[in-house]
C-alpha cells in the first residue's frame, strides 16, 4: 500500500488548508537573497533603501492578485485546462519547456549558491557533489509525497528556520537611529535594476499558479498572507541592518545578514550565523522542491501517459548535473540573476497570458450565449 501512495495521484483528493498554504507560500519565497538583501537595497536604492521593499511588495501583490483573479474567473480549473481550451497544446510546448528549463535552472543555481556560500563561510573542504546529492535525495522523497505531503513537511521545516528571527533582539543595544540618516534614496541608485533584484527575493510564489486543483475554495487569501509574512520579515531584517550598520558598511559587506547573525552573542551561543545558515538549508530545500514540483506538473501535463516518477527522475537528474556545472560564486550569481529575470518574466507573463485567454473565452461564451438567445 505504501508503495502506491503518491504515485497514482491519490493525494490530490486531499486539499490544502489555507494556513498550511500561507506557511508554504512564505517558505518558498526565495530566502537566499535575504542574506544580501540589505546590500542590494543599499546599492540600488541608496540611503534608507529598506523602504523600497514596501514598493516591491506592492508589485508582488499585484502579481498575486492576477493569480487570484484567474482562479476566480476560471472556477478552479487548472491553468492547463484554461489554456488548452483555446490554444492547441503543441503551440504551447516550447513555452512549457522554457518554463521548465528556467525553474529547474533556478532550483539548481540556488542550491549551488547555497553550497558556495557554505563553503566560503564555514567549511571550505565541503565535498560539493555529496551535498548536492543530499539535496536531490531529500527533494526526491518530498516530491514523491506529492504537494499535500510536501506542504506538511515544509510547515515543519519552516518551524526550524523561524526562531532565528528572535536572535535579532540581541542586536538592539547596538542599534541607533542616527545611522538611518535623513536622506531618502540618495547615492548611486538604479531603481529599475534594483527593483528586479529585490523582486527575486519574492520569487517562488509564481509556482502557486499550478495549485488550483489541489486547494480549498478560499485559498487565495493564503497567498496574500504568505507574501505578507515574507514582506514583514524582509522589512524587519533590512530595517535593523540600516540601524545596526553604517550605510557604507552595508555596501562593503557581501552578506550583511550573515554579519548581523554573526554578531549576536548569547550566553550559550556565539557566532550564531553558522547555525542559522545551516538551518536555513530547510527553507532552501522547500524552495528547490517547489520549483522541481512545478516543473514536474508541467511535464506531467505535456505527456499524461507517463508515470510522474519518471519525470521526477528526469528533473532531478538534470538538476543535479546543472548544479555541478558552475565553478565560481560570481558564475552562479550571474546565472541565477539571469534565470531570476526570466522567472520574473514568467511570473508576470504567464498570468497575463492566461487572463487574456480567460477574457476571450468569457467574451466568446457571452457572444455564443447571446446568439443562442437570439435564436
Amino acid at each position, binding site marked *: 500500500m*505504501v*508503495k502506491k501512495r503518491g504515485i497514482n495521484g491519490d493525494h490530490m483528493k486531499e486539499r490544502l488548508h489555507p494556513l498550511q498554504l500561507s506557511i508554504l507560500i512564505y517558505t518558498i519565497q526565495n530566502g537566499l537573497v535575504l542574506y544580501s538583501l540589505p546590500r542590494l537595497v543599499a546599492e540600488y536604492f541608496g540611503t534608507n533603501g529598506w523602504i523600497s521593499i514596501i514598493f516591491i511588495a506592492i508589485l508582488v501583490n499585484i502579481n498575486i492578485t492576477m493569480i487570484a483573479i484567474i482562479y476566480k474567473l476560471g472556477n478552479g480549473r487548472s491553468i492547463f485546462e484554461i489554456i488548452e481550451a483555446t490554444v492547441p497544446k503543441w503551440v504551447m510546448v516550447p513555452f512549457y519547456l522554457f518554463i521548465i528549463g528556467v525553474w529547474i535552472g533556478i532550483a539548481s543555481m540556488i542550491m549551488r549558491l547555497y553550497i558556495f556560500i557554505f563553503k566560503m563561510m564555514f567549511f571550505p573542504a*565541503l565535498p560539493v557533489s555529496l551535498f548536492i546529492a*543530499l539535496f536531490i535525495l531529500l527533494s526526491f*522523497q518530498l516530491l514523491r509525497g506529492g504537494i499535500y505531503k510536501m506542504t506538511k513537511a515544509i510547515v515543519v521545516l519552516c518551524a526550524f528556520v523561524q526562531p532565528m528571527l528572535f536572535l535579532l533582539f540581541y542586536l538592539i543595544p547596538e542599534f541607533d537611529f*542616527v545611522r538611518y540618516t535623513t*536622506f531618502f534614496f540618495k547615492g548611486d541608485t538604479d531603481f529599475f535594476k534594483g527593483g528586479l533584484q529585490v523582486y527575486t527575493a519574492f520569487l517562488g510564489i509564481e509556482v502557486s499558479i499550478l495549485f488550483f486543483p489541489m486547494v480549498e475554495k478560499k485559498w487565495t487569501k493564503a497567498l496574500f498572507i504568505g507574501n505578507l509574512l515574507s514582506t514583514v520579515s524582509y522589512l524587519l531584517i533590512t530595517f535593523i541592518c540600516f540601524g545596526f550598520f*553604517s550605510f557604507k558598511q552595508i555596501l562593503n559587506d557581501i552578506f550583511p545578514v550573515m554579519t548581523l547573525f*554573526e*554578531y549576536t552573542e548569547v550566553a550559550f551561543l556565539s557566532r550564531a550565523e553558522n547555525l542559522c545558515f545551516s538551518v536555513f538549508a530547510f527553507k532552501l530545500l522547500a524552495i528547490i522542491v517547489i520549483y522541481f514540483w512545478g516543473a514536474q506538473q508541467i511535464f506531467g501535463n505535456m505527456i499524461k501517459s507517463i508515470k510522474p516518477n519518471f519525470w521526477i527522475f528526469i528533473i532531478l537528474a538534470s538538476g543535479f548535473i546543472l548544479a555541478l556545472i558552475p565553478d565560481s560564486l560570481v558564475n552562479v550569481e550571474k546565472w541565477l540573476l539571469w534565470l531570476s529575470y526570466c522567472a520574473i518574466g514568467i511570473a508576470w507573463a504567464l498570468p497575463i497570458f492566461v487572463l487574456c485567454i480567460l477574457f476571450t473565452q468569457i467574451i466568446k461564451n457571452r457572444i455564443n450565449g447571446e446568439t443562442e438567445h437570439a435564436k
Partner: protein
Amino acid sequence: MQNKMIVMIAICCLFLTGCGGSKIIEELAILESVAFDLSDSKENPIKTTVLFPTVSKEGKAGIQTLTADGKSSHDTFIKLQNLTNLKIVGGQSAILFGEELSKKGLINIIETFTRDPEFGTRVKFAIVEGKGEELLKKKIPSVPDNAEYLYSFFEKLGTQNKVLNTNKYRFLRDYYDDGIDPVLPVFSYEGDNIELKGLGTFKGDQYVTRLTLIETQILNLLSGDIKNGSLMISMNDEESGNNVQLYLSDINSKNDKKVNTSKRKNMTAEVNLDIKGSVLEYTGTMDISKDKYQRQLEKQVENYIITNSKKLLIKLKKYQTDPIGIGSLVRNRLSYETWNKLNWNETYSNMNFKVKVKVDLINTGNSK
C-alpha cells in the same frame, strides 16, 4: 523498503559531507592574538607577531610567539607557516596594532579580515604604544598567557566604559560612517604590567591622538547614555586650593545633543548631560551629608565636567577627529546635497560647542 533505503542514503550523504576536511587540535596553532607592526625593511613593510597556545606530549600547556615580515598581512601568515610544525588557523580574540602602523592607516589590514570569514566580528582591536610585538612577547611573572589576559582586560573595559568597548564591527561601522570617527583603546608595556593608557582616536583609518584616562571618561559621558558607570574626579578646592578627590559610582547619565546648522560657517552643537550618581569617596572638607554642601558639591562637579569637556572638545577639533559623532547629527540636519558639498573638516574646526551639565548626587555613601 525503498523509502528506508533512500533515507539511509540521505543520512549517509549528510555524514559523509563532514569527512571533507579534518582538523586535529594537537596539530593546530590556534591563534589567540596577533600583533601588526611596521617593520624596518622597505620590501616587507608589515611585521606580524602571532601568539598561540601549545601542548607538549607530556600534557604541559605553554604559549609560543612567532614573528615574520611580509608585504601584506596574509603574506606574513604564509611565512609564519614555515616557522612552525603546526598548522596555523584563526581563532583570534585580540588583534593589536603598533603605534607607527596605526598612524599610517589600518584599513588595508583590516579589510583583509573582513574578507576572511575566520575573523569574527567581535574580534577585539587595540593600539599598542611602541610595538605590538613587544607586548605579546613581554613576560609578566603572574600572567602565563598575555593574549588571554588581554582578552579579559577587554571584556572588563567593555562593561566598565562604553567607548572602550571596541571590536571589529564597531571599528568598521564608525570608519565607514561619514559622521563619526572610530576609537581604539591604547595599551602600553612600559611598566611591570600591561597597562591601559587611554583611548586612541582616529581620523579615517589613521590614529591621530591619544586621550588620557580622564579625557576618556569625559568622552564616554559626551558620547551617549550611561548606565551604572563610574567617574573619578580630581579637582582643586575653591577656597583652600587643596586637591580634592571625588569618586562617583552608579552613574546614570542621560545625554542629549542638539546641533544648530543655520549658520553654515559657524555651526553650534550643544550637549546636555543629566548625571545622577552616588559618592563613594570624598577627600574634601565640606560636610556633604548636609543638603547645602551637597548642592555646592554638585555645582563643583558640574564645573569640573564642563571645563574638562571644553578642553577635550578643543583637543578633538585640533586633531580634526570626531569620535562623539557630531558629524552624523549635522548630517541629519542637512540635505544630501549640502552635506556632500560641505567641507566637514573645516566646519568641524569652526564649530562652537556648548556643554550643559546637571548633576544630582543621589546619596553620599555610608558615612556621615
